[in-house]
């Protein structure tokens, strides 16, 4: 983390809560169940930086590129020209796995180390200031021990922090379970946690977002109501049932 400097997310309420944004160089876990808005939030975060000229990288493991781009085109925040001119680079990690011969189920320590080096090289070469891995759950699935997962995320986070690159790692969790990650490890290594969830009200599901943790920032842990419209992710204070 770079003390004092903030990385604006582009989502007003988050930035206001954190006095201007996330501390630069932080690794933030964006945890949520399927359809909770993790990918949209992360891409909005990248696009906001890219509009200011910050280089960004989005690693996808869960969705093929054409599907991802197709889904993003409906959002006003998405500017394809920023992808075309290389300000935002979107990489399908599965292609890298294949090229490196890492398409096995279980990674050895050497495999994990080789993959880590590739991710670091890409971030360094592109001079990325914002980076997303969607999802860290799918990435860690191949790392078979807690130590390997911890080591991988810690080393990646440390390297990116030194580059002053702010990183979002999406974490897939089951709906309405009090968990931040599948392995219960990622949250301890991350500097911050944004938890996406939902609550039921009158038979309707209201999306929610909560800043659970953010090192170096005094922030509220109140839940926000979240909406995903053509404008992207928006928040408003959640009305409380009594």
């Amino acid at each position, binding site marked *: 983390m770079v003390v004092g400097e903030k990385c604006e997310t582009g989502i007003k309420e988050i930035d206001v809560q954190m006095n201007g944004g996330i501390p630069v160089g932080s690794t933030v876990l964006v945890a949520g169940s399927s359809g909770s808005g993790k990918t949209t939030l992360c891409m909005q975060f990248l696009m906001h930086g890219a509009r200011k000229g910050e280089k960004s990288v989005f690693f996808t493991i869960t969705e093929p590129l054409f599907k991802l781009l197709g889904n993003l085109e409906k959002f006003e925040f998405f500017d394809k020209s920023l992808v075309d001119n290389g300000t935002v680079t979107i990489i399908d990690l599965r292609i890298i796995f294949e090229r490196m011969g890492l398409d096995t189920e279980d990674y050895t320590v050497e495999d994990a180390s080789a993959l880590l080096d590739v991710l670091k090289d890409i971030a360094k070469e592109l001079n990325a200031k914002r980076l997303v891995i969607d999802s860290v759950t799918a990435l860690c699935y191949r790392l078979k021990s807690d130590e390997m997962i911890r080591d991988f995320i810690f080393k990646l986070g440390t390297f990116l922090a030194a580059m002053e690159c702010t990183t979002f790692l999406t974490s897939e969790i089951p709906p309405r379970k009090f968990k931040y990650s599948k392995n219960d490890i990622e949250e301890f290594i991350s500097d911050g946690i944004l938890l996406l969830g939902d609550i039921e*009200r009158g038979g*309707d599901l*209201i999306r929610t977002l909560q800043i659970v943790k953010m090192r170096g920032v005094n922030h509220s842990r109140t839940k926000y*109501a979240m*909406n995903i419209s053509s404008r992207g992710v*928006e928040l408003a*204070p959640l*009305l*409380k049932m*009594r």
Partner: protein
Amino acid sequence: MSTTLIDGLKERISTSISMYESVGLVLPGTNYTDLVQALFGCIKEHPQDAWIYITVTRPFESFVKMFGDLSRYPNVTFIDCISRASGIARNDEQCIYVESPTMLENVTMELNSIFAKIPEGSSKYVVLDSISTLMIYNEPSLVTEFFYQLLNKTRAEGIHTISLTVEEGETDKYINKLIYLNDKIIKVRDTFI
């Protein structure tokens, strides 16, 4: 429909909103249509002002039927909280559809988004139609919090609010509490003119 009643209502609303930031209108169900006519009279008379009409009572389509082509009122944008929940699927330039009247926070988000696009210097008005219908779909405590938030936000930003309450028999104690949060209350009676 009585033109005298509508004109009288229009005049009272116009005078009140020029003097007060939040105006509560309490009316019997039988006068609902007259009041809507009066409100649209106010909207038409001030084309330079920006209006947002939050409807929970009737779908947007019903306003189209009542007033015809709403492009004659380009200064009003609707937030329709009832159509989607009733299975009505339309797309209209002048209307934003919220999935359900229980999604009150989404109404706040849509309000913020619309007001962000309105140029500085325009007078801004929000019509909430109505508190009594919101109470049908939501817990009274939620509607209370929503209304407090709405009034606080609009007051802070110099936006005028007009909230409707349809009186049916004995008005609910929660609604009574909310009405009195307004700066001015107009109780519509058949004999009030």
